[in-house]
């Protein structure tokens, strides 16, 4: 059991526990905090995969900004605990095992299909190469995403404004 394997198992367990907690919790704030835990665990996994820049970006943008936006909206709308459902009992007794079966089938197929893959060594100065790729080969999508964010900003402002 190498150190890498041990760290991977711990982080994977934390991620899965966070995801299950997201589904099981009834208050949206607790679900949001579980999702932040999942994202932090994923950032740790990215660090394990030698993708340092992506790990830092995941924490800064995803866990540090997008999830804060979620938490702001939950606080603003004063979301409370979920009400009791009026889903029929048959649906839940049949649906949950079927969903678990779907999950296991998906995981099994993916594991089988990616079994022959082996990790290649990461090049030195990966951040520099990543930025060169981003600004040379992918410059057009990069500019498009900046326009996309501008559209998103304007759209969110217009949507959430109160009619004066």
């Amino acid at each position, binding site marked *: 059991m190498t150190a890498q394997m041990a760290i991977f198992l711990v982080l994977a367990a934390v991620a899965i526990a966070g995801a299950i907690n997201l589904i099981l919790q009834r*208050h949206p*704030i*607790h679900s949001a905090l579980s999702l932040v835990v999942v994202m932090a665990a994923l950032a740790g996994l990215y660090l394990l995969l030698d993708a340092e*820049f992506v790990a830092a970006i995941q*924490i*800064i943008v995803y866990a540090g900004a997008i999830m*804060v936006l979620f938490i702001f909206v939950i606080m603003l709308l004063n979301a409370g605990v979920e009400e009791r459902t009026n889903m029929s009992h048959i649906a839940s007794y049949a649906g949950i095992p079927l969903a678990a079966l779907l999950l296991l089938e998906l995981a099994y197929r993916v594991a089988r299909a990616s079994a022959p893959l082996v990790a290649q060594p990461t090049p030195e100065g990966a951040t520099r190469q990543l930025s060169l790729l981003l600004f040379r080969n992918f410059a057009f999508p990069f500019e498009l995403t900046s326009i996309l964010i501008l559209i998103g900003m304007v759209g969110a402002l217009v949507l959430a404004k109160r009619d004066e």
Partner: protein
Amino acid sequence: MNELFARYPILLVSLVKVAVLLFVLLTSLAYMVWFERKVAAHIQSRIGPYRVGPHGLLQPAADGLKFLMKEDPTPEGADRFVYSLAPFLTLSLAITTIALIPFGPSTIRIFGQDTPLVIANVNVGLLIIFAITSMGVYGVALAGWSSDNKYSLLGGLRSSAQMISYELSLTMSVVGVLLLAGTFNLSDIVRAQDGFSWHFLPRWNLLSPTLPQLLGFFCYFTAAVAETNRLPFDLAEAESELVAGYHTEYASFRFAMFFMGEYAAMITVACLAAILFFGGWLSPFPQVPAFAWTHYLPTAFFAAAGIALVIHGVRYITALGRVVLPAWGLVLCALAFICSRPGVIEVVQGPFWFLMKVFIVLFVYVWVRWTLPRFRYDQLMAIGWKVLLPLTLLNVVLTSLAVVAHK
């Protein structure tokens, strides 16, 4: 356990470094409070704490005891888990960033292993520090919400909105330094500031020959003061507004955790300012043989402080002071002697200059707090978005033009 350490000796070494750094950090957090109260008092023409121990030096201990012994009530409608989580999150995240700060260039031997003076030398160290500080918003927002108190919620939302807005300017103001250094690694950023222009002006990023990062430093310092919720940007947590904001409903130890988290964030920001703009551990004197006497400056500093403390202490008012102050003076003199030994003198150079710079930045922090009036909240947000962000973008453009022209 022993074979785990035998297989990965870096674990034991890191543990020792973490323990030492944690002890030093927590002590300096406590004495930061004392320092601020003393400086504030002298700015306001009074003395500050001077009863509890000589010169009030035992005041942090008294405060700590008080915090531990006070009653710790939890509001009735509060969400228990989140209410306990918020101060813990704030403090632990603020303390974690110190693990990435390099204190010196040399390597020291612990348990037979040569190890640098930094706990984690990550290649994207600067980015990880910003990532951890951006998670600090959660502590504030969750504290405000979970207190089940309208004023806390408003204060928490305002505080966290302010922190997010100034985080952008904080990160962008550092891009100029990154352009000059070409790397995110903090040790390499300091090494890129080595050397002297015209043989006497240090090539720190503040006075860089390519483009002096004065605008960058100004934006960084303003954004940092706003990010740590200090005056003049502390409307969301000031005592006279919103009943102390997001930490209204917190008492005793949880409030102390918020307090310590704020000071730890201040120390982190000051360390970063020293590394990014003031040359980190580099000495302001050229490293030529003519200036070899500057290697004895740490010794001289500690010796002077020790002798002054001894002379002042033997004539102090209280009996306790007459014993304790000269004792500390003698300890400082012994430290000065140790710093002049040939094995220690090279190792102590880097951390000495680094800590001096951090101390000066912290002093300016406290000075600014007790001199300037407070901004109103809408003025605060307007400055963050309409003034600082365009200034940082201008800094990025100018620096990149200067870097290209310099090549």
